[in-house]
């Protein structure tokens, strides 16, 4: 069969149509293209069929819809099922958004708590001199904003009270802090307004205050006492990232104990915290200044040679003059 005689044999209408509808596999397709390249008759058939299809676009869809009936009926049934599914999804999304908003509000309150917490009279070495974040704004904010924030702070104060109760319990262990914390609770409402302001307080008589989870700087502003602690209202400033449970400051040094019982020391007002090697038994729960205690008791300024005291969970005491080397008392 020569080349010309082979052209007497053409692909049937079905194959040509399948070619035009791209329904053939690659091998068959190549075969048809090869034939079309040579056969003007089949090319004409394909062109005409395509032109007719282009003119019949609306009516072509009619059989397609009918022929795909099974698939469409399946889809149609699914379409009805999609309505309740979509409604459920919307409800779930709404619930999630509300939950997230509440969680965010709660965490925001928790952040605000240490800043809004009133400082106790007895622990004013840790009194804030500068409030940051949300609490800092009211210094220049209008009365309406203050009122709104006061409303917002109500649960935060409650949270702070709970925190205070917890820390008070710790203080009771040592016995020394119980009175201070009780006074703090009593004076809480009176000092609430001061929480938004930068507060600088005189050095405490007893510097082993149960601190809220906030950072502080020592010696920000010297006063008569000469020992100051400034709350910055930030959590996780210690290298451990844990909240401070107790801190004490001298003129040049600040000691802090985190929740894990790790002790850190910082020189002057700035700089970074250095961890103190453990030289005591048990877990350190409080740190205080022996010198301050004596100074305040006698009503005079603290001596330059301040002595830090560290109390462990067995109520044993260690002393140090530089906060780094400790000896059992």
């Amino acid at each position, binding site marked *: 069969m020569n*080349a010309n005689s082979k052209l007497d044999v053409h692909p049937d209408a079905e*194959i040509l149509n399948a070619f035009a509808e791209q329904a053939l596999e690659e091998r068959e397709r190549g075969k048809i293209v090869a034939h079309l390249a040579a056969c003007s008759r089949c*090319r004409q*058939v394909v*062109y005409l*069929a395509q032109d*007719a299809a282009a003119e019949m676009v609306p009516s072509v869809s009619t059989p397609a819809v009918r022929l795909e009936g099974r698939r469409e009926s399946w889809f149609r049934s699914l379409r009805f099922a999609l309505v309740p599914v979509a409604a459920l999804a919307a409800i779930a999304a709404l619930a999630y958004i509300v939950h997230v908003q509440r969680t965010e509000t709660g965490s925001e309150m928790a952040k605000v708590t240490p800043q809004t917490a009133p400082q106790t009279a007895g622990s004013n070495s840790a009194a804030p001199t500068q409030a940051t974040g949300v609490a800092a704004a009211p210094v220049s904010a209008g009365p309406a904003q203050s009122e709104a924030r006061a409303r917002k702070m109500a649960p935060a104060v409650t949270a702070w009270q709970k925190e205070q109760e917890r820390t008070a319990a710790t203080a009771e262990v040592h016995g020394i802090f119980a009175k201070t914390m009780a006074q703090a609770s009593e004076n809480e409402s009176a000092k609430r307004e001061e929480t938004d302001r930068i507060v600088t307080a005189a050095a405490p008589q007893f510097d082993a205050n149960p601190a809220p989870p906030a950072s502080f700087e020592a010696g920000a502003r010297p006063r008569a006492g000469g020992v100051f602690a400034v709350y910055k209202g930030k959590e996780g400033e210690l290298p451990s990232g844990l909240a401070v449970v107790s801190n004490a400051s001298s003129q040049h040094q600040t000691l802090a104990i985190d929740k894990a019982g790790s002790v850190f020391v910082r020189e002057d007002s700035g700089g970074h915290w250095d961890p103190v090697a453990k030289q005591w038994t048990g877990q350190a729960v409080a740190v205080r200044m022996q010198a301050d205690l004596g100074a305040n008791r006698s009503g005079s300024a603290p001596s330059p040679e301040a002595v830090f005291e560290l109390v462990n969970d067995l109520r044993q005491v260690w002393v140090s003059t530089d906060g780094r080397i400790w000896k059992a008392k």
Partner: protein
Amino acid sequence: MRWSKLRAGARRVNEILLDVGTVQNYGLAEGTTASRQQQATYFRALKLGDMVLARACATGNERAWECFVATYRQPLVRAAIAITGSDTLGRELADQLYGELFGLSTRDGERRCPLQSYRGRGSLIGWLRTTLAQRHVDHFRRNHREQPLEEYDAPVPAHEAQRPATELKLLEKAVEGALKRCDAEERFVLAAYYLDERTLLQIAKVLNIHEATASRKLRRVCQDLRKQVLKNLQSLGLSRRAADEALGADPRDLDLNLKKLLQYSQSDAFQEKAAP
């Protein structure tokens, strides 16, 4: 009773499917054994609904015919009108095919329905359109042969060959050799564009490519052809400069039958013979 009918129907459909798959060897080359996956792919591509309707009509099922008439009668007429470009001719063509489909023609005393040849590859409406187009083209070609050639062939202007016959012969050989090197798709693009004078959009639709791609393909084919012709001329003994000059020859001086050249690599046979 009804259950047994359903089972019998399912068995019949299975037989038809197997028959269809076997006849076409599941779309594979002859001699190749189709794997189960290939068979499944083939069956999935079939328009089963269309095929069942066509077979039911071919066997004379009345309900099937009702469905067929309701669905395809009007599209069939419209397609025929679109193909012939004439309302009268279109309706005539559609009626003729419709009569054939209905089984008015018989062979060896047996009712013969073209729907029997539809095997579900491509849509039924597409098959109807293509069948109409085939009938129309074949009819036109038959009548075309009966008409005097002078009405269709443009008179060749008389002019003298500007180049020596040997050079033209070399050019003819070079062009022939270059065209033979083209693959099927390239030859199709050339034939469709230069012989059929189809637009790039029409060519692109046939090849299922973008119009811009068809344009690039055509440009590239022409460039490659030119390069190949030059190369062939040089291999036939012409210098580069002489080959360049030879390309400037008037195409009318060449004794080339592009149609024949493009048919060069036709090698595969198809199932249906062209209408006489």
